[in-house]
């Protein structure tokens, strides 16, 4: 049994942004990369997260990087903000996953793959905007929301899905009037993320277009990137491939460019 109340409860439980991160984000916003690194140093968990993230193969570093100023310098201003947001989303992830066959390692891989490939896309589109670069970080939050809301109903949901072609997002919408993207928007509001991020995340569902043409175009790229990533063996195994519906018509016109960027043959 899933009610609107479960969503409210989930939103209520979202922790406020820790002071260290507020300070770090403010300094990044002011362009103070070095000072931001000093501020971030006091959060040991953030330090460990950053170290683990940037040393993943998808970042393509030849040598391992360990200290925060080095990591911030390497990532640059925009990507550092993105990484801080990734860390904040990571704070919401459960210690133990029940609905999806995930663990923290796989979830961090998902974040890293999305972030690195989103950067390639923005480079191709010649878009340099740190908020747009950061928007991708909110996408994996849909998975955390799905896990939190459906974990108690795992068997029922699986039973429904053996007779009906219905994704988790649609089930949630029909039961409560809200979907994962609405909940993600609430997370963004609580964490005072810029409006453009919230608009882009809603539009990336493929079913709720933005009034802004550029946001809609970016949303197509984000939607296709998500399904490109969720088609990888590790994420199929985690049962992430069909938790939301892939809106294939929404992304058809950018597919050829996408294939070029991702070198799909």
């Amino acid at each position: 049994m899933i009610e609107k109340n479960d969503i409210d409860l989930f939103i209520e439980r979202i922790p406020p942004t820790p002071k260290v991160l507020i300070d770090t984000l403010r300094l990044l916003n002011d362009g103070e990369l070095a000072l931001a690194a000093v501020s971030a140093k006091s959060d040991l968990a953030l330090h460990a997260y950053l170290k683990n993230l940037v040393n993943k193969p998808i970042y393509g570093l030849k040598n391992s990087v360990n200290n925060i100023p080095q990591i911030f310098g390497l990532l640059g201003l925009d990507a550092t903000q993105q990484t801080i947001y990734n860390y904040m989303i990571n704070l919401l992830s459960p210690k133990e996953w029940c609905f999806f066959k995930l663990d923290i390692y796989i979830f961090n891989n998902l974040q890293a793959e999305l972030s690195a490939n989103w950067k390639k896309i923005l480079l191709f589109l010649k878009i340099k905007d740190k908020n747009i670069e950061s928007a991708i970080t909110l996408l994996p939050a849909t998975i955390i929301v799905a896990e939190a809301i459906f974990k108690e109903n795992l068997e029922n949901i699986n039973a429904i899905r053996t007779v009906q072609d219905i994704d988790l997002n649609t089930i949630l919408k029909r039961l409560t009037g809200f979907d994962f993207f609405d909940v993600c928007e609430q997370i963004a509001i609580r964490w005072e993320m810029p409006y453009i991020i919230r608009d882009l995340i809603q539009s990336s569902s493929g079913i709720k277009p933005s009034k802004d043409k550029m946001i809609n175009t970016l949303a197509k790229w984000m939607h296709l990137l998500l399904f490109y990533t969720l088609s990888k063996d590790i994420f199929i195994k985690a049962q992430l491939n069909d938790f939301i519906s892939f809106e294939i018509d929404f992304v058809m016109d950018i597919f050829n460019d996408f294939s070029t960027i991702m070198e799909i043959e």
Partner: protein
Amino acid sequence: MRAIIKDGIAIFKPQGFLDGNSSDYFISLNDIEATKKLDVSLILVSLEKVIFFNRNGLDTFIKMFYDVSLVNKATVGFCDCNDKKYDTIIKFYKNNLTFSLFNSLETASLFSSNYKDEGKTILLYSEDKSQRTAMAIELHDFGHNPIIAQSEKEFLEKKKKEQLYDVIIEKTFLSQVGEKVGTRVSGNAIIYTISSFLDSSLGTTFNLKYHNNSLNVGFRLFIFDAYKVSAMNIHALTFFAKLASASAEYNATICFVGLMFDKIPPKFKETLEDAGIMFYNDMDDILQNKKLLSELSKIDATSIKNKKSLNKKIITELPNFIDATVSTIEMMTNSKAIKESMNMNTLVIDEKEGKIASSIGFYGGIDGIVIFVFPQEIAKKACELLLGEETDDVYMILDTLAELVNIVAGKIKMLLTAHNININITLPRTYSNIDDLLDIVTNKKGVQVDLAFDNDKFLFFLTR
């Protein structure tokens, strides 16, 4: 990934990109084993939400098709192939297509022995003449009216008048069709599809246990769709005669529809008639004749032969039955259940007005019947989740109710499997009239649990 099962069709729906690295993980060995056990006539992989695939990506599914069709005898293939996907697959496999390709699920379902709607007028074209003929024969045999375009030019001309056709089929390739005795439900009749020459193999292709359990659940009309039967031998004759006399104990009716006697000895027909089997030329002679349909499927309380009583093994598992029912209906209707009472007695329904019901049988490690009596409001709420809309259409509500009961039974099956009890389930029978339901459980003792979902009274009854 597990298949979605609907109307006798199993369909896998991968999304995104299929390549050699990923597709192995879409369908695991466990999934293949589970698919082999499915009682379906079509097994399909939908490419609707696949934006990219290569040959390696498809090969995993083709291997699954091969493994499964050897055991299951179902028709296998890909559906939702648009022109580009169709052409690409044809290019990949050239003259080595061992599976079917359908432009849509709707097209595929026309070739299913479980197809339950009226026959369609179909415009049909394939570049390959033998394909055109094969598809036309199959479609005709399944009760449709295929119109073949002999050339692309003719096809394009005819296609301009699309309003003349219910369905237009192009870019479709039909590989070998399944050999299973297909089963479907139309109203309260179970329809078996049989084809070609009938012989002793009926003993293996016909699921007798399923048939017997359908009798227990309350089905009384069994129709053999025999349009595609060319002839039969003495073994098949004996099989049907025995089946008819066993079914007569339940006062059930067995009919043959569309059976041609050109190549069947007249004595065979006499023997079958003596066994109580009835013959009709057309399926609509029964299904569209509501009075006849009601008469033939009527339950006679005096004919209930099964007097088995509940045993300790079933009672021990009762909490699983209740849990599966309550949690599924709570989830589907978004309401909270309160158990009001539990009794062991014959079924008692105080208020019949505004209620509908369904029964489903299970057999294997344990056997019995579960009966659910719903207020229409609960079924309507479930419709909202499954269909995404409200409806007052009784037939749609009954259809959805059957689906809901299937979900509950699937969950019961899963919970029992965890206790090392393996069961199979029958198709659910639905009742718009509660008195019809009461006839099948006359004098049968069972466990009755009265529940309230918000203010709606719901009844669960487990018997044998």
